[in-house]
C-alpha cells in the first residue's frame, strides 16, 4: 500500500497574496474581499482525505474457459466498494500478461463509487498457446481534491489463469510393431496385387506370374507385372524461419506458429492412420533440442525411434515456442551467418591484385535470397545450403509435406529441388497476409504467385485461410498423403 500526498492547492496562497496586493495597490475593496476564494480552496485541499484502507473487492471472469489459439477472449473485471465511504476517484488497472495483446476495450478504468455499488470494465485479448497468469489488479484511490493518493494491489477473485492448448490427442502409446509398409500405390511395376502391365517372359520369373490364358491362346510366355507396393515414408517439414514469424494483426499467432500447429495436427492424423512419419524443421536453433538435432543442424525424428511420438511432441512444442519469439534478432543472426560464410569465398576472377579485400563486396552475394552461388554443387550452384542438407537426409522414397507460410521464395526453391529429384510433395500453407492495407494485398498476391509456382513444379498446394478451422485444410491434404494422386 503506497500513500502519497500531493501539494496541489499551494497556488491558492499565492493567489490570495496577489489579490490582496492588487486590492491595496488599486484601493479596490472587491479584490480584497475576493481573496477569500483562494483561501477556501486551500482549506479544501487541506481537509480532503482518502480512506485509510482500500476496501475494494475485485472479481475477474473470462467468457471462454478453454479457448483455442487465435480466439478472442473477453475479460470482465467487476470492482465493488465494500467500505462505508464514497470513493470519488477509483482507478484500476488489470494485470494483463505482457504476451497477450489487448485488441478491444481497455484494461484501465476510473470510476466514482458510492458504498455498496459496483462497476465493471471489460476488454478483449487474443488467446495464445500456453498458460498465462494474470497479475493482481492495481487500485488507486484519490481524495476529491486530488491531494492524497492510496495505491494497492488487490487480489482478484475468479479466473486468474488463461490456458490455451491445441486439441487433445490420444496419449502416445508405444507398440512394438515394426513400421508397416505404406499403402501408396506406385506407378512402377513389380510384385504386388493390382494388375499393372505385361511384359515378355524372362527366365527366372516365377511360375505364378505367367499369364497362362495368353499362352493358351498364342503359345507365347508372358509375365504379368503388378503395381509394386513400396514402403513410402512421409516426411513433415515445418518452416519456422524468422521471415515467417509475422502476423496480419497484432496479438494473433504468427505464420510460423500456425505451420507448427498444422504440422502437429498432420502428424497426429498420419500416425493414427499407421503411416511412418518423420518430422523435421528448418529455422529452429539446435540448442534446445539436444539429442534430436544431427550434425547438419536439422532436427530429425525417425519413426524407427522407440520414443518417436514423445520426441515429435518435443519438437513441435519447441517449434511453437521458437515461432513465438521475436523475429528481429533471429533474422539478424541469420544475415550475419550468411555474411560470414560468403566472406570465406575467394575473390571473383578479374579483380586487380592491389584491391583491398573489403572491396570484393560480399554484400552482393549475401543479399540474394538464400541462393548463394557455389559452383561445386551438382546443380551448378543453384541450391541453398539448407536445401542440400534436407535432400541429403531424405529417404529415397519419401513424400514430403512442407508446412510453410510461403512469405519468401525459399519454399518454392525447395519444391523445385524436390520435384527435380522425383519426391511427391504436398505444401500446406496458412494465409497470414489477410488485411486491407495495400502492402498486405501485395503480400497476398505474391504469396498466391508462389503457391502457383509450387504447383507448376508438381507440388499439391493446400492454402488455409485463418477464418476457417484447420480441419478443412487437413481434409483437403490428407487424401493426397494417404491414398495417392
Amino acid at each position, binding site marked *: 500500500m503506497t500513500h502519497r500526498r500531493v501539494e*496541489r492547492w499551494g497556488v491558492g496562497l499565492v*493567489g490570495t497574496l496577489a489579490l490582496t496586493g492588487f486590492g491595496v495597490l488599486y484601493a479596490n475593496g472587491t479584490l480584497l*474581499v*475576493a481573496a477569500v476564494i483562494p*483561501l477556501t480552496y486551500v482549506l479544501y485541499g487541506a481537509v480532503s482525505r482518502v480512506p485509510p484502507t482500500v476496501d475494494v473487492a475485485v472479481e475477474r471472469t473470462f467468457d471462454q474457459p478453454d479457448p483455442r489459439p487465435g480466439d478472442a477472449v473477453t475479460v470482465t473485471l467487476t470492482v465493488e466498494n465494500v467500505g462505508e465511504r464514497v470513493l470519488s476517484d477509483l482507478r484500476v488497472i488489470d494485470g494483463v500478461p505482457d504476451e497477450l495483446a489487448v485488441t478491444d476495450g481497455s484494461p*484501465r478504468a476510473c470510476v466514482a463509487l458510492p458504498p455498496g455499488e459496483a462497476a465493471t470494465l471489460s476488454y478483449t485479448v487474443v488467446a495464445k498457446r500456453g498458460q498465462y497468469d494474470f497479475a493482481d489488479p492495481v487500485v488507486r484511490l484519490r481524495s476529491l*481534491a*486530488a491531494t492524497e493518493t492510496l495505491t494497492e494491489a488487490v487480489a482478484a477473485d475468479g479466473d486468474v489463469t488463461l490456458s490455451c492448448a491445441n486439441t487433445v490427442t490420444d496419449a502416445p502409446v508405444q507398440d512394438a510393431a515394426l513400421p508397416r509398409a505404406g499403402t501408396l500405390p506406385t506407378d512402377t511395376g513389380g510384385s504386388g496385387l493390382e494388375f499393372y502391365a505385361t511384359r515378355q517372359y524372362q527366365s527366372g520369373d516365377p511360375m505364378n506370374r505367367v499369364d497362362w490364358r495368353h499362352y493358351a491362346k498364342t503359345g507365347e510366355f508372358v509375365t504379368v507385372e503388378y503395381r509394386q507396393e513400396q514402403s513410402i515414408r512421409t516426411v513433415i517439414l515445418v518452416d519456422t524461419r524468422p521471415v515467417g514469424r509475422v502476423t496480419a494483426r497484432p496479438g494473433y499467432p504468427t505464420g510460423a506458429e500456425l505451420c507448427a500447429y498444422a504440422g502437429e495436427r498432420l502428424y497426429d492424423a498420419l500416425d493414427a492412420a499407421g503411416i511412418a512419419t518423420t518430422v523435421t524443421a528448418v529455422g529452429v536453433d539446435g540448442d534446445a533440442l539436444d539429442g534430436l538435432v544431427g550434425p547438419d543442424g536439422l532436427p530429425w525424428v525417425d519413426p524407427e525411434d522407440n520414443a518417436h511420438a514423445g520426441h515429435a511432441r518435443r519438437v513441435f512444442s519447441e517449434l511453437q515456442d521458437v515461432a513465438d519469439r521475436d523475429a528481429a534478432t533471429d533474422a539478424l543472426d541469420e544475415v550475419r551467418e550468411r555474411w560470414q560464410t560468403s566472406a570465406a569465398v575467394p575473390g571473383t576472377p578479374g579483380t586487380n591484385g592491389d584491391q583491398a579485400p573489403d572491396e570484393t563486396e560480399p554484400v552482393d552475394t549475401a543479399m540474394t535470397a538464400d541462393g548463394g552461388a557455389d559452383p561445386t554443387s551438382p546443380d551448378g550452384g543453384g541450391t541453398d545450403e539448407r536445401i542440400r542438407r534436407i535432400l541429403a537426409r531424405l529417404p529415397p522414397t519419401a513424400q514430403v509435406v512442407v508446412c510453410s507460410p510461403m512469405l519468401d521464395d525459399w519454399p518454392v526453391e525447395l519444391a523445385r529441388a524436390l520435384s527435380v529429384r522425383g519426391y511427391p510433395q504436398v505444401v500446406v500453407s496458412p494465409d497470414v497476409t489477410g488485411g486491407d492495407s495495400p502492402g498486405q494485398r501485395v503480400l497476398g498476391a505474391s504469396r498466391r504467385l508462389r503457391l502457383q509456382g509450387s504447383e507448376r513444379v508438381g507440388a499439391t498446394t493446400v492454402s488455409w485461410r485463418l477464418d476457417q478451422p484447420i480441419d478443412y485444410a487437413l481434409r483437403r491434404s490428407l487424401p493426397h498423403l494417404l491414398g495417392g494422386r
Partner: protein
Amino acid sequence: MSTDTAFDGADRPTRTSTAITAVVTAVVVALLLGEVRLLVWPAVVGSVGAACFAAGLHLVALDRGEPVTGVVASVLTVAVAVGLLVGTLGTVLLLVGAFFPVETTAALSIRSLQLVSRLGIVLGCVLAVLGVLLGLRNVVDRRALASYFQLGVKTSVVPALVGGAMIAGVYLTQSDANSPALLGTLPATLGGWLLTPDPVATHLATLALLVAAAALAVRAAVDALPIAELLADSGVGQTRERRVEQTRRLLGWAGGVALAAAPVVFVTELVVGPAGLSGALGASFYRSLVALSTAPGLRLLLVAATAIAVPTVVAVRLLRWVAQGSVAAFANRLGPFVGGAAITAGAVVVAQPVVRGLSGWVAGKLPAPFSSAFRESTAVFVDFYGAPTIVVLLVAVLVAVTATFALLFRVGVFAGYLSAETAGYSLASGGLFVATAFAGTVGASPWLVFGGLVGSFLVWDTGRYGTTLGEEVGRHAPTRDAELVHAGGTLAVGLLGTGLAYGIATTMESGFTPGSPTSVVALVGVLVGVVFLVAALR
C-alpha cells in the same frame, strides 16, 4: 507489475476535462473582453497568433517526417509574430490613442495605471487562450520548443538573405547626377582588369593568378567528374588511369608554381618598374613578354576554363550530396526554407498595400506632433528602399521575433516554474487570474470578478486532473463520470467561497447588521455550499 509503475503511461488529456477547461476559458475571456470593448480586435488577433503558435508547436512535436508539416509550421510563424505584436503593441497604441494626451500632469499617473490594467486584461486573455490550446494536446516540452526555435531560425534565413540582397541591389544601382551607378561600372572595370589590361607594361602577376586559378579549378573538375572511371574500367571496376593521374599531377604543379610565383612577380613589377624590366631583359624580349601577358585570347581562355570548371565542381558535389542522402530526409530539411521562400514571395506581392495601410494606421493612432514626423520619415524611407524590400525585411524580423519568443518561452517556462505536463493549463489559469484581477481594478461588477476567479481555479484543477487521468488511465476508458464528480466538487467549493466573499462584503458595508434580502440570500448560499462540501467529502 509493481504498484509504483503500474499507472505510468502516456496519453493525451481526457476529453471531458479538456472540454470543461475550453468552455470555461472561452466564457470568462468573452465576459472579460466585454469590459474593454475598445480592445476586442487586438485581443482576437493575439488569440489567433496564440493558436498559430500552438498549432506550429504541435506540428513540430508530431515529428512525422513529412515536408508539408515543416512548410506549414514555418508559414505560421509569421502569423504568430503578427498576433504577438498586434496583441501587445497594437493594444498599447490603441490605449495611447484613447487616453493621451492628458490635461494635467497629475492625471498622468492615474491614466498610466488604467492603461496598465487594460493591457493586463488583454494580455491575460491571450495568455489564457494560449495555455488552453497548448494543454489540449499537451505538446509543451523542451524538445518541441527547441525544434520550433530551429524552425524559426531556418525560416528567417530566406527572407533575410533576399532582403539583404535587395538592399545591396539598392545601394549598387543608386545613381545620381555625379556618380554613375556602381553596378553599371562594376563589370566594365572587372573585365578590363582581367581580360584587356593596358598593353604598356607587363601584367605577369595577374596572368600568373589566372593560370593558377584555371589549373586548380580544372584539376578539381577532373577529380569530381568520373573521367578516370570511364576511361580505365575494363569491366571489373578499375578506377585508376595513368594518363589521368599524370594530368592531375601536372595541373597541380602548374597551379602551385603559378600561385607561388604570383606575389614574387607582382613585387618585382612594382619595384623595378617597366623601364627597369625593359632594360634588364632586353627590349625585344620585354616586348614579347608584354604581348604575351596582355594577349586577350590567352586570358579569355583561362577565364573561360575557370568559369566552366568551378560550376561543374559545385554541381557534382551537390549531386553527390543529394544522391547519398535520402530524398525524403532532404525534403524534410528543406521544408522550413520552402516556407521561408513562400513567405518572401507573399511579402513581395502584398508589399505596396501593406506599407501604405500600416503607416497610415500607425500615424492615425499617434498624437498630433508625432504623427506628421512619422509620416514624413516613412515616406522618405519607402521611396529610397522600395516597398518590397521593407516588407521582406519586416517579415524576416517577424519570424525572428517568433523564434526569440519560443526561446524565451522555453527558458522562462522551464526555469523551474512550470513542469512539462501542466505548463499549458498553468498558463491558462494564470492568464485568467491576472485578467480577472485587472478587470476588478477597472470597475467590473463583483460577480464577474468572483466568477472569473472561480473559473481560473476550475481551469487549473480540471486541466491538471485531466492530464494525470490521461496518463494513468488513458483516453479509451470511459472516465466521464469521475471527471464530472471532481469538477463538480471544485465548482462547489468555488461557489462556497464566492458566497463567503459576498457575505463578508455586504457585512462590511452594512456594518454587521444583516437584514437586507441580498445578505440573507448570501448566507443561505453559504449554508448550501457547506452542505455540498460535506457531502462530497464524505
